[in-house]
């Protein structure tokens, strides 16, 4: 069994299109596809991997650079990175690219792995009322409580949203407010947004090593294109929602297209010289991946589907995937001119699609959250994957690998050829139906008579049970209750758990009591009487008590539980508990 599976996996290896280059399950990389970039940082032809590591929660955010399988350097980041891009800023020789890291409202630009420039998003208009309130606080005209009330009223009404400082202030506990106000009141009030996504756009040449502009999307629903040298805003476009994913093609000075997936489930296509989106794709689910393959846009949604759209926003095809999409990335094998899309799925597979055809499946040891394909080290076609558990996987596409392009679903569906297992009717059955046919009237009469008698006896038994309230489910409309009892333990001490629930829609039950009936020679119950608290409808109230078995004879008995209403002797409910034999004593 084991040997066969081993050999099959080895066979799989030889037939696989990928070479396993490196796997480190504990690399400690917590990152996403947008925060991985490959770049020839030193201009020596040896490509490095730049990763914006999101650390653990709000700590240990780092910019890490890998060379081969080893980490070369790391720089601490102040805030969560939302995008990492390598781009050429100028025409200077040697042509070493800079790294842009989007983080909070800033873009940090590194050159030669040293901080070089920090770009800050332009501040936004502050709510006049809010400013006024803070000014008053600065002059100590109002105390923090009033400040809180006023800010809250502004938050509810105003058109311009509050600044981060005010929002943070509203989250604080009462005793922390004073200190917060004193710390920040002297600083001018600013409202700033944060970057949600980042991409690069060639400035005026289509070459591989052309100067690139940065394209950034912000939480305020705007898109900026930045000049690479002066870091001035070249173009500013407003969108109707918050952009989350970007894809850019073309050149800034000539013609370009920006495809933006927004948080409202729409994908907008922008072109040069248009102040508003040219096309809009409305999807029924959130976009989780956006990749442009040649002229088509591949969109992965949270609906476990992958759609192909033309660049004018027309849907071409849809593929249903076996699991949710974690991430998507482009695979471009330049030597053969192959472009395909890599889709990391939640079932620990990475699928490779060209159009709607599945080309290959990579099984991974963990769920892949970050994908990046490109030149790494000196190898052209390298696939870098980071996993949910912080692992790093590097695979190299074999130079002999051939992708066969075939439609995966030809002909009728497989379900058509499965025969249903219809059981044959036996001869006995046929004989019985004959008997039924011949004696139909007599059989019917007997059955009807029996049925009347059954109804009568059932009704009698039911009334008897109702009178004695034997059932653990109360049937009266005034006190709809259910009771269920469980015994735990092995004796001589048992734990008795009574689960009492009020099943009415909106009437709480009050003034209920619980008592027990048992053989006092056999059992001791402590406590044996409860006052039930007010029962809120729909909630389960577990009531626990301890039962001690006094006998060492290995015999057991029934304990009856009654739920009573105060002042009435007939119980509302009764439950019978068949006690287990006490083994603790008997075995000892």
């Amino acid at each position, binding site marked *: 069994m084991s040997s066969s599976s081993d050999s099959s996996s080895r066979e799989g290896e030889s037939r696989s299109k990928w070479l396993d280059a490196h796997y480190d399950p504990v690399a400690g990389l917590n990152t996403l596809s947008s925060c991985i970039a490959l770049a020839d940082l030193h201009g020596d032809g040896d490509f490095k991997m730049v990763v914006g590591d999101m650390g653990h929660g709000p700590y240990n955010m780092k910019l890490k650079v890998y060379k081969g399988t080893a980490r070369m350097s790391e720089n601490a980041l102040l805030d969560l990175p939302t995008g990492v891009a390598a781009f050429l800023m100028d025409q200077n020789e040697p042509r070493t690219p800079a790294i842009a890291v989007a983080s909070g409202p800033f873009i940090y630009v590194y050159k030669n792995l040293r901080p070089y420039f920090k770009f800050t998003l332009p501040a936004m208009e502050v709510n006049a009322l809010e400013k006024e309130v803070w000014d008053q606080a600065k002059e100590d005209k109002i105390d923090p409580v009033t400040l809180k009330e006023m800010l809250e009223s502004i938050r509810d009404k105003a058109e311009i949203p509050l600044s981060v400082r005010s929002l943070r202030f509203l989250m604080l506990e009462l005793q922390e407010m004073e200190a917060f106000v004193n710390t920040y009141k002297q600083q001018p009030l600013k409202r700033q947004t944060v970057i949600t996504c980042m991409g690069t756009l060639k400035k005026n040449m289509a070459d591989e090593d052309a100067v690139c502009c940065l394209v950034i999307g912000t939480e305020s629903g705007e898109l900026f294109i930045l000049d690479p040298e002066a870091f001035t805003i070249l173009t500013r476009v407003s969108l109707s929602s918050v952009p989350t994913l970007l894809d850019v093609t073309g050149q800034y000075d000539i013609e370009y297209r920006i495809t933006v997936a927004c948080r409202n489930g729409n994908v907008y296509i922008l072109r040069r010289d248009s102040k508003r989106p040219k096309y809009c794709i409305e999807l029924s689910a959130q976009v989780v991946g956006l990749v442009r393959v040649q002229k088509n846009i591949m969109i992965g949604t949270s609906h476990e589907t992958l759609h192909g759209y033309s660049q004018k926003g027309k849907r071409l095809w849809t593929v249903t995937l076996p699991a949710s999409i974690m991430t998507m990335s482009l695979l471009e094998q330049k030597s053969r001119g192959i472009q395909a899309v890599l889709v990391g799925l939640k079932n620990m597979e990475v699928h490779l699609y060209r159009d709607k055809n599945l080309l290959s499946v990579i099984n991974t040891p963990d769920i892949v959250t970050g994908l990046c394909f490109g030149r790494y080290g000196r190898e052209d076609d390298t696939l870098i994957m980071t996993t949910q558990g912080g692992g790093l996987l590097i695979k190299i596409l074999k130079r002999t690998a051939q992708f066969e392009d075939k439609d995966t679903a030809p002909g009728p569906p497989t379900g058509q050829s499965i025969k249903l297992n219809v059981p044959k009717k036996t001869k006995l059955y046929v004989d019985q139906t004959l008997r039924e046919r011949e004696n139909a009237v007599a059989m019917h009469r007997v059955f009807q008579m*029996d049925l009347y008698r059954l109804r009568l006896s059932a009704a009698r038994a039911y009334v008897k049970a109702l009178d004695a309230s034997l059932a653990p489910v109360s049937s009266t409309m005034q006190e709809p209750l259910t009771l269920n009892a469980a015994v735990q333990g*092995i004796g001589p001490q048992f734990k008795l758990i009574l689960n009492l629930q009020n099943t*009415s*829609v909106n009437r709480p039950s009050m003034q209920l009591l619980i008592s027990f009936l048992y053989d006092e020679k056999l059992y001791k119950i402590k406590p044996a009487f409860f006052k039930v608290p007010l029962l809120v409808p729909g909630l389960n109230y577990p009531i626990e008590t301890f039962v001690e078995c006094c006998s060492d004879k290995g015999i057991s*008995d029934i304990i009856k539980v009654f739920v009573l209403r105060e002042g009435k002797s007939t119980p509302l409910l009764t439950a019978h508990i068949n*006690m287990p*034999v006490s*083994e603790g004593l008997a075995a000892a």
Partner: protein
Amino acid sequence: MGLETEPLLQAWSYFRRRKFELCSQTCSRILEQEPYDQVAWSLKTRALTEMVYVDEIDVDQEGIAEMMLDENAIAQVARPGTSLKQAVGKKFDGPSPAVRPVTQSGRPISGFVRPSTQSGRPGTMEQAIKTPRTASTARPITSTSGRYVRLGTASMLTNPDGPFINLSRLNLANYVQHPYLAKTLFEYIFHHENDAKNALELAALATEESNFKDWWWKVQLGKCYYRLGLYREAEKQFKSALTQQNMVDIFLYLGKVYIRMDQPLTALTVFKQGLDRFPKEVSILCAVARIHEEMNNMSSATEYYKEVLKQDNTNIEAIACIGSNHFYTDQPEIALRFYRRLLQMGVYNCQLFNNLGMCCFYAQQYDMILTSFERALSLAENEGDVAEVWYNLGHVAVGIGDLNLAYQCFKLTLSNNNDHAEAYNNLAVLEMRKNHVEQARALLQTSSSLAPHMYEPHVNFAFLSEKIGDLQSSYVAAQKSAAAFPDHVETQQLIEKLRQHFAVI
């Protein structure tokens, strides 16, 4: 008066007529006069043993301690098809759980209640100590207490002036020299006193005395080791005994050891060897069929039961199992035949009439349905049986469309058996039809807490929650249902529908 019979002959006669109480009293009288009468002493030990004797090859129940603290287990997750433990989430050979109900461990219920068919292995300690531990179905802490305690206490109560033989004052080495005394003494210690340690000591001395040639003592040694939980040692003794003497018993004991070690496939091989030596031996065939049944292999279990019936056409276990299998594979008319055969053989109890009623109902023999159930009700021995009959009557009432009667029947089931999870579930469905959402919710919650292995309450809860718009609870319940029964189509469809709900903006 006539001639007084010779007291020893009288005692012997009582023993032959299985009047053990009288036999032991007569022997006591002889022993009072003649304290060193070995014959009387031996006869009295045998009489006392016979009173509490249970066939050791019978299946015994696995206790909580053996299950939860299993030190023989090597792998937590065994390979599929090699263990008795994994049943949940497995493909079913034969009818799906939608047709044939399952036990707590996810196995289809058997047609014949044996100690191990009742609840299987629980997943957690809490489940182990919680679930149906009533007086009739309690799972013992260890198999060394369990049944033996209950049987042993009977003899403790009847001997108020202390035990017949004081084990601690016995010089076992003396007895070993008299093989006939030693054997009866061993059986007394093992069965009556339930003292495996002393029995082991005696058996060990006796084997040594017989120069390790006596297979009987080896088997007894194996039994002692088995009782003490030393399965590997027991296996060694049984195997050694087998080389000396081929006995059906030894094969069965050995198979039992392997089952306890959770090696059903090895047990099957042992039984196959046994069948080679004793072709068509009924008890071995039965044991094989049981293993197949426990491994969810219903079709081959039925084959073996049929083989049993060819040899012994009055085997109740085989008839009942084949009958229930036919019932659940949509051939109730054939099941009816099998159950009628049981009736002809003189089995006359509540359970049988209950089954007959259900078979008649599904085979459309309407004139006999309700009479069978009436008979079952009058034959019911305890409240649990009454509850089962009312539960089945509830099904009949649902079948003929009388929901009011069905409601009463399920209520009566609950008043007779407070822990009847299926009845809670069905009652909830009836409440759902009346649009009593809160009641239905409470009943379903109770049902699923009583029987977490059933998928029905989970899936009903999921549908109910989905209907009132509580998608989150619905999804959670649907997931539980899918865990209990992965191939359930409605659950899968519901989950798919909910996923779409969640994905849509």
